[in-house]
């Protein structure tokens, strides 16, 4: 007794002591099955009990009770279906007898169980309530016990959980050891040398990698219902609805599918995603690596886990290392410019072409010609392409002329596969020999340039008859003998190298430039499109392959790179190399003629984001659709701000917003367009919130006045997903309508720029003017609409000027 008064000493605690606070009364602790740790049911100083804190933070769900607890050793599971997710389990009592069962809320506790109505489903009592286990199931330690226990804060809990991911045996004391909570260094404008560069960016990339790993690995989804199929290549396919809309899933991602074994022995298989959810279906398609032993007779109770791959981050780290240690990774001039050193402007002697437009591409305008001409003579240049200014055509022309300088192959990259494919297609049209190198996991994905992909070109190489034979054999049999497989790989490598060596231009994503197949290659000239959407280390991957001449294309007035880890983003990882070079004083060459928007649509973005420099390459007449009957408030200005004052709500998931009034108005506008003869694929609906996106899709399905199918074909998506693309008509639903809070990330001027510049023929903004006008930029936008007599309210067939008073904008804080 007395010894314990001294306080707990870790090594003396039994195994079932709470890993946070040390409490070890068997009646008060719960065992986490996933990680084999014990936690108590006391809250201490936190918002939930220790066991709940752990389950939520570690995303664990299965628990058992202690053998010496009143109930004895018990695995908590659904009596009916066996689900072990404590978060959905609850007690159901019999109506007239003192008997209870544990049932999961959905579906078991909601469907009739037992014809004789013995159970009272209305009395379902969740196992976890108010962020702790029911106190009569797992005792809450007394105040006295809690006072004697180790005191731990929510912050310490969080750090400990984080530490466990790296080191499962870590204890609370380890939190005080150095290195656990190091502050990261912020990015600089200038770096002394490449070592300093690596020392600053290396840890940031690591932070982002760790965050990504944590997010991916923590995500398991259970209760997956699978539909089985077989692909043309004989591989086993699993289709299932993806339950988590908050997770970014990409084609090529690896997932692990698991069956815990109720009707079949336990099984797990890894595959990669070949299809992601879209408007038509929520299904994900997973192509499994191994086709044998798959429990295809089972369809229910599968589980998915994410398989994290370090490749992307490893390539960035390697690139920075190469930049530091390999003197030939970039030319001396490029080296110093990238580090921000002051240098005299250098020019490259080159024979300028007589004609700057490239074969089979549209004629270049004056600012495009200027861009091509300037870029060819400079070792490092930036091209800024505002929306619709022909960035891709200009890039393709530059690549064409770079290739024609006969100074070796040109490497062409962009952060996203879509952008790479678009550019590949344009460059191919000029007649150059283009090779598209795609990640192995993406080989099955069809695109407009699949025929230019390395793996497809390998299939068509007649000069390797033996390889062709082995490939055919492999296709037919599914696999080769060990010896044949070895021979196959050798031949394929030789074939790939020959194809790569003969190409004029090689196209891949930035990270793809770190592909081992390109490892031995050197590229004197590199063009990176959409470089403002890549992080610096991402841009370094293609740059360190021997760059002497680099062209970065992008627009720092549109959305920047996506960095998920807040800490890394705040330290500056979300600033692109392009942006830093601009701040350093390297002036981007701006493309100035836009060919996308009706002139009235480009006016505000031009004045607000591009110092009024955008010229219109299209006339109003070319952007009016005479036959279309639509109630534009000012007939010659196809735009309006539709004032709507509906309340915003928190979405069902609890993590996003939605606004029903705005959704209803979106439906009315869409229906009016469709009735006027506009096709669904001409309309884009943009909303910044996932909650609103999901609600809109659903609302139009059920409440749309016209055929369901028409609404299914509409594209409803986020601003971010629309960057780089265009539609004839754009409807923007702003959602936020709260007098007291901010307008969230509509605050980012770059996001507003992107949203406003997607449409060719017309834009309708739906939002609450009073709330939005608090933000200075939105205030300007509203004034603009008002001055043009395009700020309206009321029913669509009787729009009236909206006379609402704007709020005073808060001063802009930057």
């Amino acid at each position, binding site marked *: 007794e007395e010894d314990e008064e001294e306080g707990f000493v870790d090594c003396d605690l039994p195994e079932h002591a709470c890993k946070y606070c040390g409490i070890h009364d068997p009646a008060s602790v719960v065992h986490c099955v996933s990680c084999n740790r014990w936690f108590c049911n006391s809250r201490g100083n936190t918002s939930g009990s220790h066991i709940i804190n752990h389950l939520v933070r570690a995303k664990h769900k299965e628990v058992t009770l202690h053998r010496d607890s009143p*109930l004895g050793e018990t695995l908590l599971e659904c009596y009916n279906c066996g689900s072990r997710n404590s978060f959905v389990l609850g007690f159901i009592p*019999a109506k007239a007898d003192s008997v*209870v069962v544990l049932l999961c809320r959905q579906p078991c506790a909601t469907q009739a169980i037992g014809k004789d109505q013995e159970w009272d489903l209305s009395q379902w009592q969740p196992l976890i309530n108010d*962020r702790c286990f029911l106190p009569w199931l797992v005792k809450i330690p007394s105040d006295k016990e809690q006072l004697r226990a180790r005191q731990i804060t929510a912050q310490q809990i969080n750090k400990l959980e984080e530490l466990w991911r790296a080191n499962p045996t870590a204890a609370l004391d380890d939190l005080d050891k150095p290195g656990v909570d190091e502050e990261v260094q912020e990015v600089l404008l200038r770096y002394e040398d490449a070592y300093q560069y690596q020392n600053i960016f290396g840890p940031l990339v690591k932070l982002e990698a760790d965050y990504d790993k944590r997010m991916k690995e923590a995500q398991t989804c259970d209760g997956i219902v699978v539909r089985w199929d077989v692909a043309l290549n004989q591989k086993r396919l699993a289709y299932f609805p993806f339950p988590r809309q*908050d997770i970014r899933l990409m084609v090529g991602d690896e997932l692990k599918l698991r069956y815990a074994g109720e*009707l079949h022995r336990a099984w797990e298989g890894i595959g990669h995603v070949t299809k992601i959810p879209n408007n038509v279906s929520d299904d994900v398609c997973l192509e499994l690596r191994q086709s044998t032993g798959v429990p295809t007779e089972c369809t229910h109770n599968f589980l998915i886990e994410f398989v994290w791959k370090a490749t992307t981050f490893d390539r960035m780290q390697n690139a920075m290392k190469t930049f530091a240690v390999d003197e030939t990774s970039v030319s001396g001039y490029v080296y110093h410019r990238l580090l921000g050193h002051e240098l005299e402007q250098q020019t490259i002697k080159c024979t300028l072409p007589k004609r700057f437009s490239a074969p089979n591409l549209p004629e270049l305008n004056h600012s495009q010609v200027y861009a091509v001409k300037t870029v060819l003579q400079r070792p490092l240049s930036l091209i800024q392409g505002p929306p619709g200014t022909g960035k891709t055509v200009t890039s393709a022309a530059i690549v064409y002329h770079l290739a024609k300088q006969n100074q070796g192959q040109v490497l062409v990259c962009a952060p996203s596969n879509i952008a790479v494919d678009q550019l590949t297609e344009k460059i191919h049209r000029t007649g150059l020999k283009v090779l598209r190198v795609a990640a192995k996991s993406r080989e099955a994905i069809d695109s407009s340039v699949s025929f230019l992909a390395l793996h497809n070109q390998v299939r068509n190489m007649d000069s390797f008859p033996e390889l062709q034979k082995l490939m055919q054999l492999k296709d037919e049999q599914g696999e080769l003998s060990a010896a044949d497989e070895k021979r196959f790989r050798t031949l394929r490598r030789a074939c790939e190298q020959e194809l790569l060596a003969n190409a004029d231009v090689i196209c891949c994503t930035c990270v793809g430039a770190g592909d081992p197949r390109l490892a031995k290659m050197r590229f004197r000239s590199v063009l990176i499109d959409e470089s403002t959407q890549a992080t610096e280390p991402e841009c370094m991957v293609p740059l360190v392959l021997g760059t002497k001449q680099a062209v970065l294309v992008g627009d720092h007035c549109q959305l920047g790179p996506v960095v998920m880890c807040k800490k890394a983003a705040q330290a500056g990882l979300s600033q692109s190399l392009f942006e830093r070079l601009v701040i350093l004083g390297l002036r981007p060459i701006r493309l100035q003629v836009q060919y996308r928007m009706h002139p009235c649509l480009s006016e505000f973005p031009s004045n607000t984001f591009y110092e009024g420099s955008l010229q219109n390459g299209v006339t109003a007449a070319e952007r009016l659709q005479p036959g279309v009957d639509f109630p534009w408030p000012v007939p010659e200005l196809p735009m309006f701000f539709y004032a709507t004052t509906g309340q915003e709500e928190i979405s069902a998931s609890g993590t996003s917003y939605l606004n029903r009034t705005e959704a209803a108005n979106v439906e009315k506008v869409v229906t009016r367009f469709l009735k006027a003869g506009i096709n669904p694929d001409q309309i884009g609906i943009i909303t910044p919130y996932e909650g609103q996106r999901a609600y809109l899709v659903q609302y139009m399905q059920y409440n749309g006045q016209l055929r369901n199918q028409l609404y299914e074909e509409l594209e409803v998506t986020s601003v971010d997903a629309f960057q780089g693309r265009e539609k004839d008509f754009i409807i923007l639903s702003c959602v936020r309508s709260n007098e007291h809070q901010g307008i969230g990330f509509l605050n980012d001027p770059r996001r507003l720029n992107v949203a406003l510049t997607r449409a060719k023929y017309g834009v309708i903004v739906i939002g609450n003017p009073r709330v939005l006008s608090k933000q200075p930029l939105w205030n300007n936008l509203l004034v603009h609409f008002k001055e043009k007599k395009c700020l309206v309210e009321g029913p669509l067939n009787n729009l009236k000027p909206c006379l609402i008073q704007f709020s005073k904008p808060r001063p802009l804080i930057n």
Partner: protein
Amino acid sequence: ELKFLGEMQEDDDDDEPEDDAFVDEYNRMMQESAKRAPRPDPKIAQGEIAVPFNLRGSAPKTAATGNNEDSDKVVFTLLGRKGKQQPLLVPKDTSLVTKVIQTRKREDDE
């Protein structure tokens, strides 16, 4: 490559205290399965649970464990998946208990 990342990047300037993130995630985990409602495996879900014969007509009895704290609890039986039956002490003031007592009373009155 759909990205719905804007929301995660939302910058409301103030560093939210750690607990908010925990509560958000807790709410999400509580709601996750409720909104999804997967169908149970038809091969497993027989969908019939009967009160075992030995427990039919079992009236709620006050716990007699000798532990003072337990005097305001009644003994229920928790049915396990493999036929296991375990005593479970449920406080008298929970609706689980009061409902059963009510029902029994009504039946007795009839």
